[in-house]
């Protein structure tokens, strides 16, 4: 894997132009594709999922001059084809050892916990209530309680799952930012 290959501004511009004519939409698409490629490599058990995703993007970018105007179809499928090739090459190389579990600093955990409390307080009343009720239930009661919660909110159970997930993600981001401020 060529980790030293860095995207030049020119190559990156060409990639964005290929993804979408609108530069802003192209940027968002690039980010999305990268995130999904990381998930795919992680789904295949690759520890270096991010590196492999970047390698895939680099290779696609490198081939743009060849495929540019002739390619028709979804860009994503092309990325998938290249990702498969990158994966096969990766499999042929020796697998690195899994990262050892990081030792948790109890002071840091405490600060994180304080941040979590602060961030939960910062949520809107509606989101906080949904989060607390959604994650409160455990065991067999969980399914029934979540169903009741969805009914109470007038949304489908699947919509509730996604809404709870989005709140959880925003909470995690808030905690990360808070921790960064505290450790600065």
């Amino acid at each position, binding site marked *: 894997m060529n980790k030293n290959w860095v995207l030049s501004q020119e190559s990156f511009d060409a990639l964005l132009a290929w993804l979408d004519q609108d530069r802003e939409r192209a940027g968002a698409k690039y980010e999305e594709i990268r*995130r999904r490629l990381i998930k795919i490599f992680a789904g295949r058990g690759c520890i270096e999922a991010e590196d492999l995703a970047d390698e895939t993007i680099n290779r696609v970018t490198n081939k743009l001059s060849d495929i540019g105007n002739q390619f028709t179809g979804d860009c994503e499928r092309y990325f998938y084809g290249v990702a498969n090739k990158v994966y096969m090459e990766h499999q042929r190389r020796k697998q690195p050892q899994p990262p050892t579990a990081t030792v948790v600093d109890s002071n840091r955990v405490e600060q994180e916990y304080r941040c979590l409390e602060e961030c939960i307080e910062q949520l809107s009343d509606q989101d906080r209530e949904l989060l607390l009720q959604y994650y409160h239930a455990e065991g067999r009661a969980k399914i029934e309680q979540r169903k009741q919660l969805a009914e109470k909110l007038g949304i489908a159970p699947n919509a509730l799952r996604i809404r709870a997930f989005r709140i959880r993600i925003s909470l995690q981001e808030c905690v990360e930012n808070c921790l960064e401020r505290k450790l600065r």
Partner: protein
Amino acid sequence: MNSNIDKREMQNYLLGTLAADRRIELEERILCEPQVYEELLVVEEELIDQYLAGELSRSEQKQFENYFLITAERQENLHFRKLLKRYMDSRAQLASPGTSAAAVQPFETSAPAKKSLPFYSGPLANRPAFAFSASLVALLGIILLVWLAARHPKQPTQQIASRVTVITLAPGSLRSADTTPHVNFPPKGYDLKLELELPRPAFRKYRSQLLRESETVQTSDDLKPEAKGDQNIVPLTITREVLSPGDYHVRLSGVLDSGQDEFVDNYSFRIDRYVR
């Protein structure tokens, strides 16, 4: 999900057990369909929840630990979910109807709790005069103890102790396998003090590592042994905030004059969810 890929298949994909043909179909859709990608994220989240709730089968649990947790991002997500679970557990404990009477007591090992005086219903309940005399004697006894304590102050470390509950743990090497002590989750404002019995006193200072599910949650240095009766113990205070229900191990090491560690013994205990 409006597709022929269900949640179970996504879970198997994340655990690395999905058949190759289904995997290819799923991956293409992850890349091309935003809603499938988002569903994958949600299922990933739910898988972590199931793992923490002990809802995975043994083989799934093994796959989760050895396959799913390979990336730093997933390890971070697991760590965050543990933090959120701790928050939810502490809320549940405060909100639990049974906690008003029981949780305000210092938490103890899971031996049945003794009833407190306001709810006393023992043999003296029907003999108020005798009960009053007994209470008076007890009160005088307490006053005498307080006076004696004032005349003979204890060591500073004991004086500054905040509200703690003490539990004595025997070394793992001297304990039978099925006797892990159970400890109730401490109520707010209480810390847990462990007294780690020493198999033999051999060091002037000790060092400890507290682990929960193989993750270190607290390390303590400069622990000094104390004599307690005919036993030598190492006191170790654990703040409530680092605890949540689960299995814990303390790895105790002696500190050599060179500053290096020498393993002494392991101590295990379990924090139960609610005060019993």
